[in-house]
């Protein structure tokens, strides 16, 4: 089934009205992912944007058509591992799924996620990485790109400041856990995302982890209608490459043989607007290094052919 057929025909598992910002590509990612996973799923939404906008519901009503709950910020993977054990004990099966922000994944939730990866608990973990704590007004996380303005890495009138460190290469860290499936994805490549969720569903033992890069309109300063085009530029500039890894066998799924200049991407984003050419060059160098590394570890040179 083509991605279009699937998305046109499947039921939306999320409430039709959730209060995500106008144009939010995380909302798109969540609806897409849950259409692919379908009704036989149990969904964890830790504190973060998607919890805040009502996906777990409000008072005595739900925000989803599948069982959904709030784990704590730091125990999403563990709670899901427990649900899997309970299902196993009862001889039942369902997709046990996290849809968690980078704060709940890369920062506070890392220990629990790493534990699940090591033990081989069978869950599907999807991280929507918008590079920070957006739901509380955009504070920096360890996923935030170097140079970014955030509310905790402010920028002076003279353009000094911003985050001093590069973000963690988190999907690579997860891939190095030797888990059955790790992938990166983008809301600008929906058919690629759909296929990767389908791959994750096929994993019968262990963790499937998908890291989605979601430029945040409100926090980063992006026009609503550019929600998807900016996400696409992150891929086309090699800033966020799309790949998958099965037990450390890598494959670039959207090769970028001729990257666009990184400025095409950064210039659309207000949080980078104070960065001069030198600081942009630093981001570009990192992106190139990470891409080359990916090519080197990918089978057949990362599908460059």
């Amino acid at each position, binding site marked *: 089934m083509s991605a279009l057929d699937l998305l046109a025909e499947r039921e939306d598992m999320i409430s039709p009205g959730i209060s995500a910002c106008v144009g939010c590509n995380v909302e798109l990612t969540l609806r897409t992912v849950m259409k692919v996973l379908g009704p036989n799923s149990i969904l964890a939404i830790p504190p973060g944007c998607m919890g805040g906008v009502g996906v777990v519901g409000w008072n005595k*009503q*739900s925000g989803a058509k599948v*069982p*959904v709950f709030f784990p704590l910020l730091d125990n999403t993977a563990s*709670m*899901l591992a*427990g649900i899997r054990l309970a299902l196993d*004990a009862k001889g039942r099966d369902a997709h046990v799924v996290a849809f968690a922000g980078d704060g709940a994944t890369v920062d506070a939730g890392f220990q629990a996620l790493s534990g699940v990866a090591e033990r081989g608990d069978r869950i599907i973990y999807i991280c929507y990485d918008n590079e920070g704590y957006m739901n509380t007004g955009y504070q920096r996380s360890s996923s935030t790109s170097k140079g970014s303005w955030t509310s905790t890495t402010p920028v002076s009138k003279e353009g000094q400041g911003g985050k001093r460190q590069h973000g963690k290469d988190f999907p690579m860290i997860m891939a190095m856990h030797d888990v059955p499936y790790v992938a990166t994805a983008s809301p600008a490549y929906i058919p690629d995302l759909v296929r990767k969720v389908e791959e994750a569903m096929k994993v019968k033992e262990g963790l499937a982890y998908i890291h989605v890069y979601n430029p945040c309109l409100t926090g980063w300063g992006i026009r609503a209608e550019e929600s998807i085009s900016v996400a696409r530029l992150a891929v086309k500039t090699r800033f966020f490459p799309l790949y998958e890894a099965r037990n450390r066998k890598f494959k670039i799924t959207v090769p970028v043989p001729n990257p666009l200049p990184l400025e095409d991407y950064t210039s659309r984003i207000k949080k980078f607007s104070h960065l001069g050419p030198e600081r942009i060059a630093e981001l570009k160098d990192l992106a190139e290094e990470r891409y080359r590394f990916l090519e080197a570890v990918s089978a057949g040179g990362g599908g460059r052919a």
Partner: protein
Amino acid sequence: MSTVAVMNGNYAAATAARLARPEVIAAYPITPQTPVVEYLTLFAAEGSLSSRMTEVESEHSAMSILSGASLAGARCYTATSSQGLALMYEPYFRASTLRLPIVMNIVNREMISPQSVWGGPQDSLTLRDAGWIQIYVEDNQEILDQTIQAFRIAEDPRVLLPINVCYDGFYLSHMTERVEVPEQAEIDAFLPPYEAKHQILDPRKPMAIDPLTSGYLVMEYRKKHMDSMAAALGVVEETDKAYAALTGRSWGGALDLYRMEDAEYAVVTLGSVTGACREMVDEKRAAGVRIGLVKVRCLRPFPKAAVAAALARVKGFGVIDRNVSFGWNTGIVYQEVRSALYESGRTLPSVPFVGGLGGEDITLGLVSKAFDEIVAAVDAGRTPQSAVWLWAPRKGVKA
């Protein structure tokens, strides 16, 4: 038909857990609880444990895994101590407010610092207001019996709360005693399978667990939680009776009284120090002192009416706390008992003892001194304003 075995407290706990047939166990080793985890993994390796057992990377994840499993309808068990409990605090509190009937033994150990791995209930007592039922026991038989009962209490539809059965590290966890172990079939009849009816994560019945909730509803859920806590007192008593009918052993429910019928003085205890105090009651009685013992089993819910009734005719009492309540300058149980008495309108002379911290032995000699102090203070109508420290003189330590 039961079998008789000699076992340490940790083995008694693990044996009780096995008999209760939890569907999911997640645990992380920590002194002095570690052997519980080892015994359970051994049972699993032998094939005598029916549970899904997982060895986690931290206590935080142990409680988190059980929270997930319980939300999906599984009967759950774990055990921890001290720093492990402290690390667990976040999912611990939430397990009660989500009304998850998880059973957890706490092998009581002092909180650091100073760096100490020895006994003392400071760990669980500090968390007494986190919404769990907490029951404290005195010997290994009681560990086994109460841990089995804990599942039935927790899962009772009138209760639906998580429960701790707490026992002293080393004094009980590593000390061997004679323990009667009931037959599996008896326990199966006593403890039918758990069925989550109040909430469930199940695609066949989609619901949201813990949506964003406005203040008035938060208050409503808190009130229900408190009502269930109150109801738990009755369920603890009922369960004790049902278990006694099965095994012949009753532990007294929320409170256990010893020679209180005609007592003029009382000593209030919690945990393994009770044994020494019971002996000393006999000794002092033989010497003509009418003293009795009130053992607090259920710390949460606190059996305030029963405590007031138990102390209704004494002239005064003392409480032996192996923990402290910073800011009150006494132990924690002392404050609980005093609050319970306030309602009865009686102001009694009372002595707040603190001793046995960090596993320090409360010897019979110290207990004897404490009893004498109770009699002296009560006869003089005196209530010390801060803790009377129970310790033996040591070189370099001011007693």
